[in-house]
């Protein structure tokens, strides 16, 4: 196992907003736990071996579920359903009571595949249902699977249940089964960590905390969640098979709702967006009832009480407690000093031709006419300023171009070809990047990770390649890393790469969003009031940066209130009022324009 992958593996995982590639520090805790786990059976007491086996099996499931709940932010509470499914699939196939008996490991594989399929089925509602609704749906699904297991007597043995798969020679003993489960758990840790450290892991966090920005970066929530639901379903199915072997005999009563709660709480106590936190959470919650045997009846109460305490006091969970690097005190006097020379590698696209044209675009929300027959053009290599009082349709125009709203009339063309309306996901593919009026960032992740999200569509590696860290995945990561460091240096935030994004000041967040947009090597850049909340000299430096970006061939649309910035850097200015063009021309023409002055002064 080449060292760099090992050091790289948990880099994003050790704690939310985990530190840089640095020393092997983040690997240490995993190695420690793994060595301790290997030594456990030597203590001679098989009881603790069995408990550790159960913890390993639960971690196989939780490591997959963690990507959905911890990283993706989807509240999948009913995951015992897939454990039940995997257990019964493996047992029925291995037991051979319905079909001719299948060798146990093949049965385990089929259980995994079955888990993957049903992971998708359980997960799909997440795409349409709001969080509380989805949580209720998965809970409902969990009760249904148990009841089907009860009712389908001739296959599942109904209330009687059926024996679990009996594993061949070395794994039939407690210690043998333990080492098998430990190996599977270690593999699952590596696989889920490599997904977490890949662009898909970052995509999940983006969906969780900044869904609108994720769309702008071309991260498709549907495709990503579908892949992760299948991935986590496979883990849950395999865990189900191993669980059936550990139990030696399974009945519907074994798959209790408390198990679902245990999986869910171990992730939340462990901490969102982390691998180590939920791993520790799972170990603690599995061992807790064994220590607290006299109050066995109270174990579920303890779980719930722990969850409440964690949610109220440290929402970040154990991971947040352990994440010291991400929270180091930042020196407050640092200033944003863009270095436009670093733009060279990022803006190599230089698209020529007619740029983006809006033709007779009209759009109204209910009775209010937001845009009324607008014609506008963004030429490559030039800055087009858009100003006007509140409610004049500036931001709505930008949202039409980037596909967030669909106009009732008119259309948008790019380089002559018509652009389908209302598809924000597609605009990243067309080389069109944007920023937002209020910065949309992932507070938990580092500045570098936030920026790398911008380059999502430029990477070519598929999900599976990231799972197994195949060459194309590693090439993508290296390219994204390089681009991100260039982009951060270009906007002047190079020193803050490994800080948690929520530690940044407001003005730094503005420049962070621009860096994220640069990751797309954009042909067009749409800026939505980037100067709001900046100090005077920060506005000057922003102006120079935007001018440099446009000089390298990128067409820029600048929506702004700050009239001085507009007149300073724009090649062309359009003034909107009540959704119609009041005036359009060079900055000098606009400054003398009678209506503009009165519209601004409100004659």
């Amino acid at each position, binding site marked *: 196992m080449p060292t760099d992958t090992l050091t790289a593996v948990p880099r994003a995982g050790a704690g939310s907003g985990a530190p840089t590639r640095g020393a092997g520090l983040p690997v240490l805790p995993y190695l420690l736990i793994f060595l301790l786990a290997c030594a456990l059976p030597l203590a001679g007491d098989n009881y603790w071996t069995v408990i550790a086996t159960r913890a390993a099996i639960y971690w196989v499931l939780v490591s997959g579920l963690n990507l959905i709940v911890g990283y993706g932010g989807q509240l999948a509470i009913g995951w015992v359903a897939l454990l039940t499914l995997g257990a019964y699939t493996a047992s029925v196939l291995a037991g051979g009571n319905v079909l001719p008996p299948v060798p146990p490991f093949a049965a385990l594989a089929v259980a995994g595949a079955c888990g993957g399929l049903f992971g998708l089925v359980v997960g799909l509602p997440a795409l349409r249902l709001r969080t509380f609704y989805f949580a209720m749906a998965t*809970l409902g699904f969990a009760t249904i699977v148990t009841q089907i297991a009860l009712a389908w007597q001739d296959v599942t043995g109904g209330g009687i249940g059926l024996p679990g798969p009996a594993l061949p020679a070395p794994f039939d003993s407690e210690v043998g089964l333990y080492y098998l489960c430990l190996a599977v758990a270690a593999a699952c840790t590596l696989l889920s960590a490599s997904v977490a450290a890949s662009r898909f892991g970052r995509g999940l966090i983006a969906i969780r905390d900044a869904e609108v920005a994720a769309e702008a970066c071309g991260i498709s929530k549907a495709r990503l969640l579908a892949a992760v639901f299948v991935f986590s379903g496979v883990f849950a199915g395999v865990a189900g098979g191993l669980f059936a072997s550990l139990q030696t005999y399974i009945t519907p009563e074994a798959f209790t709702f408390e198990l679902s709660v245990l999986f869910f709480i171990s992730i939340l106590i462990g901490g969102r967006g982390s691998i180590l936190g939920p791993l520790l959470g799972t170990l603690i919650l599995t061992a807790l009832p064994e220590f607290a045997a006299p109050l066995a009846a109270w174990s579920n109460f303890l779980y719930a009480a722990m969850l*409440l305490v964690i*949610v109220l006091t440290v929402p970040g969970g154990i991971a947040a407690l352990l994440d010291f690097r991400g929270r180091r005190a930042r020196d407050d006097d640092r200033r944003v000093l863009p270095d436009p020379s670093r733009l060279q590698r990022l803006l190599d696209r230089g698209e020529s031709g007619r740029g983006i044209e809006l033709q007779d675009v009209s759009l109204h*929300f209910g009775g209010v006419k937001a845009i009324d027959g607008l014609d506008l053009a963004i030429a490559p290599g030039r800055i087009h300023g858009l100003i006007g009082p509140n409610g004049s349709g500036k931001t709505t125009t930008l949202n039409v171009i980037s596909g967030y*709203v669909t106009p009732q009339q008119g259309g948008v063309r790019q380089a002559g070809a018509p652009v389908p309306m209302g598809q924000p996901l597609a605009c990243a593919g067309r080389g069109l990047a944007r920023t937002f009026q209020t910065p949309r960032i992932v507070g938990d992740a580092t500045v570098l990770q936030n920026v790398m999200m911008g380059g999502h569509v430029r990477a070519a590696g598929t999900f599976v390649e990231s799972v197994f860290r195949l060459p194309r995945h590693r090439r993508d990561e290296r390219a994204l890393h390089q681009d991100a460091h260039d982009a951060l240096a270009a906007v002047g935030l190079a020193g803050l790469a490994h800080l948690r994004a929520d530690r940044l000041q407001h003005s730094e967040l503005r420049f962070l969003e621009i860096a994220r947009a640069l990751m797309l090597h954009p042909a067009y850049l749409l800026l939505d009031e980037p100067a709001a909340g900046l100090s005077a000299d920060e506005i000057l430096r922003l102006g120079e940066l935007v001018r440099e970006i446009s000089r390298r061939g990128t067409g820029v649309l600048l929506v702004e209130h700050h009239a001085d910035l507009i007149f300073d850097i724009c090649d062309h200015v359009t003034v909107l009022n009540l959704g119609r063009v009041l005036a359009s021309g060079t900055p000098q023409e606009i400054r003398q324009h009678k209506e503009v002055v009165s519209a601004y002064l409100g004659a």
Partner: protein
Amino acid sequence: MFGSILSSGLAVGAIYALIGITYNTMYSTSRVMSFTAGQLGMLGGVLGSLFILKLGLPIFAGFLLTLAGCALVGFVTELVAVRPVLKSIEQHLYVLSTLALALMIQQVTAIQWGTEPQPFPRLFGIGSGVLDEKFWLPVAACAAVVLGLELLYRRTLVGRAFLAVAEDNFAARALGLPERHLRVFSYVLAGVIGGIAGFAAGELMLAFFANGPLLNFYGFVPVALGGLGNNRGAVLGGLALGVFQQLANFTVGGVFASIAVFVLFIVVLLAVPQGIFGSAAARRV
């Protein structure tokens, strides 16, 4: 056969509707869907049986003490599980804090009250067979609550303040309305409604600790179908669900009935995510 389907269906449906109204009452002033709604229903039955059967109090005293107990649980819910997480509403921490509190309530009840369904006292003893008390009481309770809420919202200033906070929280705060007191009062009121639901359902569903999760799910379905915060939708949705479930119970049998209800819930929700009467989601960007 049809008569008993209708009577038990409307009875169970009225209980689900009341739990739906409990959800809505909490939601209107805090934008939080709390897992404790079903537990309040369960406590209505358990406390009622505790006060009247175990402690032998007169029925009316037992009823009032039950409502007081549930009101206290409502107060604690707001204090412990809602107020601390309100500021991070978009992180949906409220789902976790209310789930944790609901689980704690359920475990304590399971340990102190036992895990077998305990008997619930016979209150008035009026009616038998299809018109037995345990069938018309929940429907009467539901009607009484709906009427009571209508009076509260239409006649009293506090009720109108509720509607104002529910419609435009920011404007209500700017106008100087005591937003926190109103939220606490709405959670206490939700506790009382949940208590009434459980008490009225006592004879039908007995004093059973596992009624909590059952009511949580089946009380949520009418809210989801009817649209968040919409009591009229909750009552219609609840009654329809109750009759559908009993119909499935009679025709297909217990196990498949709950599968049928769940499938219906998922299909309708995927088709109409914000519910039949609900409003579409606001502009995102």
